[in-house]
Every structure is written in C-alpha cells, then in structure tokens.
C-alpha cells in the first residue's frame, strides 16, 4: 500500500512535468471543463431566477446537489480518466501488454499512467458550488458535516469509477469500450437535479441500479436536514460493494484477455 502510494506520487510528478511543458494545454484543458459546467449552470440559473423553487428545492439547494455531483465526477475525471480510453489507447496498441510484464498491479498502472488535468476544472467548480450553496443556506461547517461531505464525495467518486471500470472491462472483448461506458455514464445527468422531480421508476434506478443518486441527491438532502432515513448513510457501503464487484469483473476480463490476447 505504501509502495503504491509512493509510486503514484512519482507518476503524478512526471505527469505534472509534462503538463508544465505544455502549459497552454493545461490551461485550456482545465479551463474548458469550467466553461462547460458554467454553460449548464447558467441555463439552470436562467430558469430558476423566474421561479421560487423547483419541486420545493431552491436554486441554492439545487446548487448543492449540482456541486456534489460535480465534485464526485471530478475525482473520477482526475484519477480514472484512462478507463475511457483503455481499449483504444492500450489494448489496441498493445500498450497494455507492457503493464502485464511489470511487477505492479496492471489496473493501478493503467490509472496512474495518466492523471487527467481536465478534471481539475470540475473539481474547482464543484468546490465553488458547494461553498456558495452552503453559505447561502447557512449549513454549518461542523467537523461532522465536513467529514460527512468528504465521505460522501469520495463515495460518489468511487461510484463513478466503479461504473466506468465495470463498463471499461468490455474493452477486453470489443476493444473500443467508449460507447458502452458512455451509455451508463450519461445517466449521471439525472443526478444533477433532485431525484424527486422524476418519476418513481427513474428514482429507483438512480438509487439501486445505477446509484449516482448517492453522489449528489442523498447527501445533499441529508445536509439540508430533509428526512431520507437510512439512505443518508448508505453511500459508502454501496460504493465499496460496487467497486469490489467491478474489480472482480475486471479480473475476469483480464483472464479472458490472457487466453485470447485480443
């Protein structure tokens, strides 16, 4: 564990050296995600300024939901972006074979190989939104709330990563897994808004099947003191279960790969 942490640090250091070399790219990359988020937010704001609330949620409350999911997403974006291009950039080119002849976990190697700076933009936007919302809504930053928020965001990030890993495994069969990954990933759009605005079916799917709800809506509802019962605390459990499942399936895909080589 210590060894992997140190190794990750070395990878990160080298990555930043590259990014500093291409400084302009760094700025454009990180800035672009800020802009994309801004466009979405501007749209919500334009609408919300004309109505007092959306299904009982004020604009600031929605910002909290939006901010939490942006933060969770940024964790995935920064640390696990290679899952998107795993098939294209590593299986197809044979680059993945290189990972297999090195004495470290190939999944770790894959993730560590490219820290994605574009995610920093999302991270900054997420922090800004959560701060803005918490100030406007007078959420006290007690140690408990801070800890709750941290755990919620990390769990959310893990849920994002687990779902992307689960779908990236298909690259072992079909090589270009991006369409499969994006099919599931896109559903996180639902979780940008309070799940109560949707029909019951969608709410259930986003809670139990593709549980992005735990990356945004449930922690936000809890922080705002809305009664959601045990759902406020399930996020970490679901994240752990999901990532374990995803890792198992990854191992299964890996063993398929070593028998077919393609």
């Amino acid at each position, binding site marked *: 564990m210590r060894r992997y942490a140190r190794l990750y640090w070395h990878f990160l250091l080298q990555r930043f050296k590259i990014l500093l070399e291409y400084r302009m790219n760094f700025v454009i990359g990180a800035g672009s995600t800020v802009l*994309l*988020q*801004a466009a979405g937010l*501007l*749209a919500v704001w334009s609408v919300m300024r*004309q109505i007092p609330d959306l299904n009982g949620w004020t604009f600031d409350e929605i910002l909290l939901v939006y901010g939490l999911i942006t933060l969770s997403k940024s964790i995935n974006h920064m640390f696990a972006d290679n899952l998107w291009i795993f098939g294209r950039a590593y299986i197809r080119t044979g680059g993945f074979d290189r990972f297999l002849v090195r004495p470290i976990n190939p999944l770790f190697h894959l993730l560590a190989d490219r820290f994605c700076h574009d995610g920093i933009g999302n991270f900054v936007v997420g922090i800004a939104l959560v701060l803005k919302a918490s100030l406007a809504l007078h959420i006290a930053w007690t140690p408990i709330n801070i800890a709750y928020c941290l755990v919620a965001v990390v769990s959310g990030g893990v849920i994002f990563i687990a779902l992307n890993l689960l779908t990236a495994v298909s690259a072992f069969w079909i090589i270009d897994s991006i369409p499969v990954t994006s099919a599931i990933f896109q559903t996180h759009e639902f979780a940008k*808004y309070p799940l109560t605005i*949707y029909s019951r079916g969608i709410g259930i799917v986003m809670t139990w099947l593709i549980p992005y709800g735990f990356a945004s809506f449930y922690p936000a509802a809890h922080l705002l003191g809305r009664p959601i019962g045990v759902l406020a605390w399930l996020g970490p459990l679901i994240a752990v279960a999901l990532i374990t499942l995803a890792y198992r399936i990854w191992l299964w895909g890996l063993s398929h790969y070593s028998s077919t080589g393609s």
Partner: protein
Amino acid sequence: MTLALRRKGRLYRSIAVMTFKQYLAYNLWFWVQLLGQILMMTVFVFFWRAVYAGRGTVGGLEQQQTITYILLAQMIAPLVQWGQILPMGDLVREGMIAIELTRPVDLQERFYIETLSSLGYSLLQQVLTVGLFARFVFHLQLPSDPAIWAAFGLTLLLGNAILFCFDWMFACLAFYSTEVWGLHVVREGTVMFFSGALVPLVMLPGWLQSVASWMPFSQALYTPVALLSGIIPAAQAPQVWLVQLAWLAALAVGSRVVFRLAVRKVTVQGG
C-alpha cells in the same frame, strides 16, 4: 461548364455516400447516442415539468410551447454539437493536412459537403428515432402547415452553413495548439448554451440575450426551432433569412481568410 458541374456532382455524391457508410460502421455508437439523447430528453422534460408545476407561464412561454421547443432542440442539438476542430486536429497532428491540401478538391468545400450530407442523414435518423420517441412518449406536437416546415428547412440549412463557417475558423486553432480536445469542449459549452440547446433564448435575462444575438450560434438551432414551435411567428421568416444571409456572407469570407492564414503558417514554419 456543365461537364465540370457534373463532375463535381459525382465527386460530392461519392463523398456523401462514404460519410453515410461511415455512419453505419459505427453502429454501437449509434445506439449509445440514441440512448444518450433519450436520456437527456427525459431529464429535460421532467425538469421543465417541475419548473411549470402549478405555474401558467414562465419567462413568457407556456408549458406546451417550452416542452415542444426543448424536445425539438434536443433533436437538433447533435447537429451543432461536434464542429470541425476534432477532425482538423487529427489532420494536423498526423501531418495529413499537407496531403489533403494537394488533393484536387477544395478542403473546405469537401468538409462542407460532408457536413451537409451528415446533416441530411442525422436529420432523418433523428426524426425516425428520437423524434418518434418524443412523439409517443412525450406527446411532441408539431405544426401541420407545410409553409412553416419549408421555412424551418431553409432556416436550418442556412443556420447550418453559418455554423459551419464559424467552425471552420475555429478549427484553424488546431494549427496553433495541440490541445484540440480542450478547445472542442470550450466550443461545445459555448455553442450548446448560446445556440439555445439548453434553454429557449427568450427566457434568458436581457443582457444574455443580447450576448447571444452577437454570436452566430443561435442561427443554427434556436432560430429554426423557434420557428417550428411557434415562438417566432412564421410571418417573420423573411427577416430571419436576411439576418442569416448577412451572417453567412461575413463568416464565409472570414473563414476562407483565416484558413489561408493558418495554412500559410504551417507551410512557412513547416508545421
């Protein structure tokens, strides 16, 4: 003269056919995009229903009008989403641009024909897939007057050409920066918002509306969709076309100039 035209016609037809075949080749992508669009449509419809809950009009529009607008906007959105910078980036990065420039077809013309043929194809695809979904699940209501449809078609065509010219200029940034994905995302964010793909532009506060009107993006989405959903009355169509032609003239000239400058930079500095 006619011979030259006919030869061009044949050339363009073969480009169009190839684009179509490429579309079919990516069939997995097809389903995923379809799923993604249905998803976004669903999110938007529920969002707007919640916005209108118990309210008659919001921002001067009625619920039915807004929902019609949003459904149509979501159908047109894929046509404005992609731009030209990613393919241009590929050409520049792999040094293919030099080869492309020696071909006996004007590169910009070729890209435009590709865009046009994918406009036709996507439109058909959108109507047959997302369109049917919107019609039967979300009860999309459309005008029956053929004049409105004709006006819509012309406006869309002009708007598409305007956006293409803008995108061509924007794609020239690929000659100066290797981070085309980031630039693409910047463009996507700007275009999606100011084209009206997310919110009908009339709902924006005044200052944002005037910002939008100084940008060409609304011509490719908001204007045609607003015509079709009745937000812009059909009687105003001729005015709309005048504005569009002005945009088109300016951007067509601009795009050729910018491209020539960018190419010169490459040939002088050797990439």
